[in-house]
């Protein structure tokens, strides 16, 4: 497939030395926590980039900074060659009209008081998107189109999110994201909250969408095995830094870092316990140095 060659044009996203700290009031006054620590990242058009890491590694903060939902504390973020860190909302028109997001938990990402139809067409009603020529004008038509694309019944539009199962809700969130025909789709742990049996369905949907619409995809997950099915590149994050990155198959087959190997080994696999295997339940080392389970939430 020749489509997989990354376009040599301007990168979609470029992060240069991006850091982000959060101020949190703890028991002994205010504490500064570093969520991102000098991250450099380039996303090329058509690339399907996976970002993996444990919770607290900074992956969610990174995509929120990329999507200008959070300003970085220092460093530069560029979208198609233009600075978007600390830009005013008027200067973000290009970003807002080209990038859409899918979040982890559809219970939180779908407004419980809006019908599915209103939710999906909301981006189409955005003043920024109306100015773009290729954004569908006919909302009803586009709604029917995307509902079919995510394999939901057409009459779903009149119902409320709580009437659907977790997997269906995540498909509604995906329908909302693709409704304005974005160039870039950012998915934040989009399958982590779903049952394993539903996960495959949603992953297939992502794979189809990316292939047919030639989207640039940024897919955040803590599960390398999942990322492998939708991405061609991967960046591994730990403690706010990118510790390893490259083509997915290379990293999946031979990770350079101990940390990445642990991530891979931790994915539960089907196995049959026998008396002898009881001792070696999983190949994960007891603690990953320096090793707290994960930073306090």
């Amino acid at each position, binding site marked *: 497939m020749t489509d997989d060659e990354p376009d040599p044009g301007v990168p979609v996203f470029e992060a240069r030395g991006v850091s982000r700290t959060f101020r949190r009031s703890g028991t002994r006054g205010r504490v500064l926590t570093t969520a991102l620590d000098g991250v450099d990242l380039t996303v090329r058009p058509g690339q399907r980039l996976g970002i993996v890491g444990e919770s607290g590694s900074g992956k969610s903060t990174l995509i929120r900074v990329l999507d200008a939902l959070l300003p970085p504390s220092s460093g530069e973020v560029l979208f198609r060659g233009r600075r978007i860190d600390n830009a005013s909302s008027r200067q973000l028109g290009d970003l807002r009209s080209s990038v859409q997001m899918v979040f982890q938990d559809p219970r939180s990402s779908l407004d419980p008081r809006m019908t599915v139809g209103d939710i999906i067409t909301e981006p189409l009603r955005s003043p920024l998107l109306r100015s773009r020529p290729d954004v569908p004008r006919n909302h009803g038509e586009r709604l029917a189109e995307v509902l079919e694309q995510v394999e939901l019944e057409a009459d779903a539009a009149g119902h409320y999110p709580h009437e659907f199962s977790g997997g269906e809700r995540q498909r509604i969130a995906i329908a909302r994201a693709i409704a304005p025909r974005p160039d870039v789709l950012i998915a934040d742990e989009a399958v982590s909250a779903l049952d394993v049996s539903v996960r495959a369905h949603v992953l297939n949907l992502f794979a189809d969408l990316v292939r047919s619409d030639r989207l640039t995809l940024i897919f955040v997950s803590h599960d390398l095995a999942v990322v492998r099915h939708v991405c061609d590149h991967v960046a591994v994050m730990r403690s706010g830094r990118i510790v390893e990155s490259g083509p997915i198959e290379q990293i999946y087959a031979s990770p350079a870092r101990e940390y990445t190997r642990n991530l891979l080994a931790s994915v539960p696999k089907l196995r049959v316990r026998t008396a002898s295997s009881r001792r070696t339940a*999983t190949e994960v080392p007891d*603690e*990953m140095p320096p090793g707290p389970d994960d930073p306090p939430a």
Partner: protein
Amino acid sequence: MGALLRIRDLRIGFGRAEALHGIDLTVGEGARVGIIGESGSGKSVTALATMGLLPDTARVSGSIELGGRQLVGLSDTGFARLRGDVVSMIFQEPMTALDPTMRVGRQVAEVLRLHQGAPAGRARERVIEMLSQVGLPDPERISMSFPHQLSGGQRQRALIAMALINQPELVICDEPTTALDVTVQARVLRLLDEQLDAAGAACLFISHDLAVVSQVCDEVLVMYRGTIVESGPIAQVLENPQHPYTAGLIATARIDQIEPGRPLPVIENFWDGKEGRP
């Protein structure tokens, strides 16, 4: 080995709907039984019924016998005597399962004192010992911490300590690692495996993830819409699933064996939810 938990023709209804359509299951002493199914399949309801934690509006019929005691129709005080002593539960969300206003050590000690009437000094010793046994670093400090000061993994470890401190005969785990990261999940699962072994406790392990169940259990029950569609030793079920739904679950769990770029198998490839209903 005798049967520790014996459930016969258990039916549970809410309002007009029935959530559980008469299930039978047996957990032997020290056995590890996994219940797998999607959300709404009735797996959690089964666990809650065994713990006596169903809401008042639930209609329960059939029989749940735990170590010879009939639990259906047992009063709340009767259940309270069993809970934390003979049977204990590990919940999905450790943050909500712990009281945010109470120090971790006191919460663990409370379970101990409630059932064993241990004096405060002895209880504290035992709590510290238990916290270190579940692999918490610096158990003295952890016991003085509030739940929000711990990480998700540490909270789940504290819950495991709480569930096992009275050496119960049965531990019910309801999706104990679903809220955790893969790496933390792997460590917590291994800890659970070791601790159950050490305590010799039986376990009823509820999950939507067949791979997770296979890390801890020897037997598995597959539930679908309030009935058990398949059961047996894990090896046998994985090797030769009888029900198409089970075959679908196994296929979706083997995501690592599918070549990237190919569509992942979904349940619907195996079963449309209609044919072969038991």
